[in-house]
């Protein structure tokens, strides 16, 4: 019995299993809640790492749940792109979970702590499930687990949360439910046209179905794109996002921004490249439309971010802008652009994770997060704010940090695709990023704190370590970009670019 051959399913089942245990633990053995959560996710991360080596060594893994052949049973299909996303999701998720173990003590209502961890595990399991699955309806099921968990995580802080948290959660649910229904309809159309739910099989049969049922295939694609644009907060469907981030606890904002919307963008990439076929998508004219929307998202998200006073809202609008980069990179039809878009997923997960967690650490200490309250924070919490600044500089795209590498590839991509307007968009947006991130850095390091502000010191170790690891990740990935790039370049070439 080789256990490692079951990793594609165990990577999802491990966090789920731990989540099921949470209510029992909370009732009878409270001390075990956090260790079990962290252990389960560590296992998941190790499995993802192992799978990355397996995939690099011997190609994509196909796992048949219940021993049924793919079109009949559910196939779990791990290729280069999936394993890359799985690594990002479990790795960043694990760091955020470690951070939450301390954060939850003070910032989450006591009765909700076990539920908080269970929901985080469910969210990460849902996202991992979406990433590794090879079946369209299975994707929907895990999408619902992840979505329901993330709606519920917004107001989880209970009486320690902000006042608008229920409304933010309701708005998120409202948009998310519409998106889920659209996705279900799209799956129905795809099934109706082809008679299968397996992604690989679907890709083959859609070629014929395009002739036989052209409207059906087109509608399916349209509903998918609208649904997942809503879920990934692609401009102009981002309206739920700033509120949800501003009212959620910091680790939850970090998870949504770093992972959830990235996985939704991954699904769009998967739909375009592995299912519908990028040539077909581009022949419908949808691709150029999405390019323009993504470019608008990049610019308008940055402009909104400049206008904000609340640091979390700055970061939230910045996410709207960054998801634009990912989508733009994926739709440029150039291998360099695609590489840049995929690298941007990793880059942005790490950077946004660092920054939101750092802001969370400040809130943990002072309870405030207005940009004014960050004056002089650099002297009081040097390590936290150091990591924050590295991440901010990386977002601006200063070499040798990651942001520079991914933006460099994106620029090459726009040049390769001869879309010079987008070259200009990326350059302009770097400038806009610089405006608001350098303003933050200026406040943090070069301003004196206000008279009578709260005196605080460094964040506790359990919170500091994840922040610093993520911050160092910016330097590490930037310097040694060839490590993720080996995986990404294989992913790009396996998807046909």
């Amino acid at each position: 019995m080789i256990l490692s051959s079951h990793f594609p399913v165990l990577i999802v089942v491990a966090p789920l299993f731990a989540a099921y245990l949470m209510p029992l633990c909370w009732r009878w053995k409270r001390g075990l809640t956090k260790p079990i959560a962290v252990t389960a996710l560590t296992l998941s991360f190790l499995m993802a790492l192992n799978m990355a080596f397996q995939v690099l060594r011997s190609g994509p893994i196909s796992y048949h749940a219940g021993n049924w052949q793919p079109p009949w049973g559910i196939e779990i299909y791990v290729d280069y792109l999936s394993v890359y996303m799985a690594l990002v999701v479990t790795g960043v998720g694990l760091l955020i979970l470690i951070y939450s173990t301390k954060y939850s003590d003070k910032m989450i209502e006591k009765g909700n702590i076990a539920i908080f961890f269970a929901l985080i595990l469910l969210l990460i399991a849902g996202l991992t499930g979406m990433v590794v699955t090879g079946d369209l309806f299975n994707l929907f099921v895990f999408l619902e687990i992840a979505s329901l968990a993330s709606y519920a995580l917004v107001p989880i802080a209970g009486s320690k949360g902000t006042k608008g948290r229920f409304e933010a959660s309701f708005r998120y649910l409202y948009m998310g439910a519409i998106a889920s229904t659209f996705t279900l309809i799209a799956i129905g159309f795809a099934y109706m046209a082809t008679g299968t739910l397996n992604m690989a099989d679907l890709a083959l049969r859609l070629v014929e179905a395009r002739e036989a049922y052209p409207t059906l295939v087109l509608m399916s694609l349209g509903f998918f794109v609208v649904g997942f644009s809503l879920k990934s907060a692609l401009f102009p469907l981002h309206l739920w996002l700033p509120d949800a981030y501003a009212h959620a606890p910091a680790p939850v904002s970090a998870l949504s921004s770093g992972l959830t919307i990235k996985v939704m963008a991954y699904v769009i990439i998967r739909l375009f490249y592995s299912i519908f076929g990028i040539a077909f998508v581009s022949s419908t004219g949808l691709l150029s439309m999405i390019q323009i929307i993504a470019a608008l998202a990049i610019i308008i998200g940055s402009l909104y971010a400049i206008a904000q006073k609340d640091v979390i809202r700055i970061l939230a609008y910045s996410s709207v802008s960054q998801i634009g980069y990912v989508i733009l990179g994926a739709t440029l039809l150039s291998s360099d652009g695609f590489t840049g878009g995929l690298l941007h997923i990793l880059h942005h997960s790490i950077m946004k994770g660092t920054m939101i967690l750092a802001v969370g650490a400040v809130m943990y200490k002072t309870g405030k997060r207005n940009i004014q309250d960050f004056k002089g924070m650099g002297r009081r919490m040097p390590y936290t704010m150091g990591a924050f600044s590295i991440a901010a500089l990386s977002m601006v795209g200063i070499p040798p940090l990651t942001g520079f590498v991914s933006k460099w590839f994106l620029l090459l991509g726009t040049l390769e695709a001869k879309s010079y307007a987008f070259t200009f968009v990326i350059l302009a947006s770097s400038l806009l990023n610089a405006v608001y991130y350098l303003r933050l850095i200026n406040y943090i390091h070069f301003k004196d704190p206000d008279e009578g502000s709260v005196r605080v010191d460094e964040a506790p170790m359990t919170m500091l370590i994840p922040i610093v690891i993520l911050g160092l990740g910016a330097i590490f990935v930037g310097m040694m970009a060839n490590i993720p790039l080996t995986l990404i370049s294989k992913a790009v070439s396996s998807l046909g670019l």
Partner: protein
Amino acid sequence: MIRKWLIRLIFIVLLGYLVAGFVVGLPPFGSADAPAYTHVVPRYIERSVVETGATNIISGIILDYRAYDTMGEATVLFTAALAILSLLGGEKDD
């Protein structure tokens, strides 16, 4: 008021467009030759009794061929229960 009527108008136009332009493109209702019925499903119908032992084909599908989905479905229920408990449930500290 104008906004309300505008929304209604957009909806009715969309509806008309969909009914006329889209429903025509579907495979005929009740057809046994539609791809939905001819590709994957025949195996479920012909062999589910032998392969899963269930005479109810739907049980055979949801709990054997696609049991992994159903695990996810039970998890959705679990998530919903936790979500509601986090809002309205149990012990609160003040």
